[in-house]
């Protein structure tokens, strides 16, 4: 198989649960499905609690230490299974081909280590321990940090949120990964800093050819910078498509997300917020988990399994069994 037609990452029918000794296993993600191609920028959007971070953890090998487990399905990295990777496999994989920028800029860097120490750790992970200092400086310059020498000696608490997030991106890039995962990288940052970080990610993608997964609950942000979008709702992928394709969404949840957007609202029209909350983990009813919030819900939506993701046209896929009723919305 040549690398060119195998996607970099294939998430296939992934079900993630938290096994418990006495209680039944708590299912958190049921079913996640999407691909990430080489050099592509993919956005994963969904409300808080929809399982976005859990999916990231399957790709960086920290699911287990958080008590989670892939119950079925698989995540393939360049065709190799990550679900079946052992801890010693992970030692070779982790942080090398896949870089990770954790959720929340404030809690990302280790508070008791200087920036220099953290970059050095990340650089040692490449196996090459020469010229750590000069390579650290290059990394900081790559993420557009000025006064590199001062910043190296500082502790995270002395840096602003945006600077911290740049440092985290620098650490993640230390091993020149093929994929960079940024989990809500701009939560808690103000709008100008947010757009600076987005510009930086775009630039990294175009100069280094790194594929990027950008996780956010903000569809507008993803629309702006990504090639493709994966929409998650209550642990399931409900819609996948290119940004162009998603201009005309084919899932009631995505449609609702779109109509609650301020940036593309028609002047004079009302902003619609999505009614209700997503069902919490452990409280999922049979059938479609969007049923309680859906404006075109039908009786058969509430029976059987959650709808499968099926292709509409091109790369556009939707998990809804009543797309023929979409005109009513």
């Amino acid at each position: 198989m040549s690398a060119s037609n195998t996607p970099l990452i294939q998430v296939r029918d992934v079900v993630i649960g938290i096994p418990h000794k006495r209680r039944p296993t708590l299912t958190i993600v049921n079913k996640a499905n999407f691909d990430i191609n080489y050099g592509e920028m993919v956005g994963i959007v969904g409300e808080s609690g929809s399982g976005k971070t859990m999916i990231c953890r399957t790709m960086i090998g920290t699911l287990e230490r958080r008590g989670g487990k892939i119950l079925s399905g698989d995540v393939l990295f360049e065709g190799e299974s990550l679900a079946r990777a052992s801890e010693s496999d992970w030692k070779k994989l982790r942080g090398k081909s896949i870089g990770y920028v954790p959720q929340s800029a404030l809690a990302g860097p280790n508070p008791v280590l200087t920036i220099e120490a953290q970059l050095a750790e990340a650089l040692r992970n490449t196996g090459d321990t020469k010229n750590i200092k000069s390579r650290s400086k290059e990394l900081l310059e790559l993420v557009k940090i000025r006064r590199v020498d001062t910043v190296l000696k500082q502790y995270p608490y002395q840096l602003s949120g945006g600077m911290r997030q740049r440092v985290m991106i620098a650490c993640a890039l230390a091993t020149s990964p093929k994929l960079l995962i940024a989990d809500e990288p701009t939560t808690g940052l103000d709008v100008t800093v947010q757009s600076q970080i987005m510009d930086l990610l775009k630039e990294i993608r175009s100069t280094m050819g790194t594929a990027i997964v950008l996780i956010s609950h903000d569809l507008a942000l993803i629309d702006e910078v990504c090639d493709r979008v994966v929409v998650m709702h209550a642990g399931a992928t409900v819609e996948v498509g290119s940004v162009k394709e998603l201009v005309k969404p084919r899932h009631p949840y995505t449609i609702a997300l779109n109509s609650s957007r301020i940036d593309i609202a028609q002047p004079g029209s009302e902003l619609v917020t999505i009614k209700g909350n997503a069902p919490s983990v452990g409280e999922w009813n049979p059938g479609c988990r969007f049923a309680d919030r859906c404006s075109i819900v039908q009786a058969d939506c509430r029976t059987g399994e959650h709808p499968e993701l099926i292709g509409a046209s091109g790369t556009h896929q939707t998990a809804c069994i009543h797309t023929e009723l979409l005109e009513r919305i």
Partner: protein
Amino acid sequence: MTDSQQTAAAQDAQMVVEKDRNRAALRKTFYGRILRSVIVGFWVMVIAFSLMRLSPGDPVRLALGADVTEEAVDAFRTQLGLDKPFYIQFWDYFTGIFRGDLGYSYFSGRDVTEIIGTHLPVTLMIIGLSILFAALISLPLALFVATSKSNTVNYMFRALTSVSLAIPGFFLALLGLLVFGVYFNIAPAAGYEGAFPGNLKYLWLPALANCGSLVPVLSRVLHSSLVDTLDEEFVETGVIRGVRKGRFYWSYLLRPSLAPTVVLLSYMVGVMIGGTVIMETIFSLPGIGRELITAVDGRDYPVVQSIAMIFGLIVVFFSFIGDLTGYLLDRRVTLS
């Protein structure tokens, strides 16, 4: 200058200011704590001074015994200055402090500075050893329990620390004497040798008995901080970077979690002094605590006042050391 250069320069300036501010805060804290230490020492002394004189019991009669004439009593009272009014006595003692004169024991006539000089090191040694042992036990224990996924381990930890906390220190000391002193015969039950490495033979068991109440408190606080830390995102980055095990445990788990425990430990020095006084009595150790008990019994005013003042100084001093250590471990800690 371009816009970005200007902002960079502005940020540079701000950084320099911030650095100076940190250093200034550190210096201010240092002097502040010394001042506070002195103030607390002073007030503890004032309280000891007043309470001793307000409580019943006449030091003069206690010192001279029963079979003395009234003249002798009056003469001794005058000699000690106890016939002077309260505030004059206080002034004499207070001004004496600045000349390094803490007075003389009514009983032995020994210089109080000399009493403190001889007996305080023993007490400090027990406290130091207690802290060392408590740290050596609590750190691995809390780390082991926090990283263990077993429910049994967690349950046992909670149960055993509760039990240990409920056992009084003196009981633990007596039990230790029985087991290590009598049964295994590896700890002397009495006696003492003053010089440093030799005296450890007499001090390790009392220090260990002190740990009976220290370890449960410290390990529980550390355990809960560790559990919080384990949930933090930065630990995830450490895992992903494949940081070496030793470094991971220290830099990613312990160091970010230790500050509250260290601060608590330093604040517990006051409690430890209380525990150590009991240990000194049980193990017949020539510490300052035993001197204090004897002095209180005999209404030996200068000795009691001075020791109380020293205790006040020590407690505040240790709390400063604790805050400082917490800050050095984790710069997020603010020194107030």
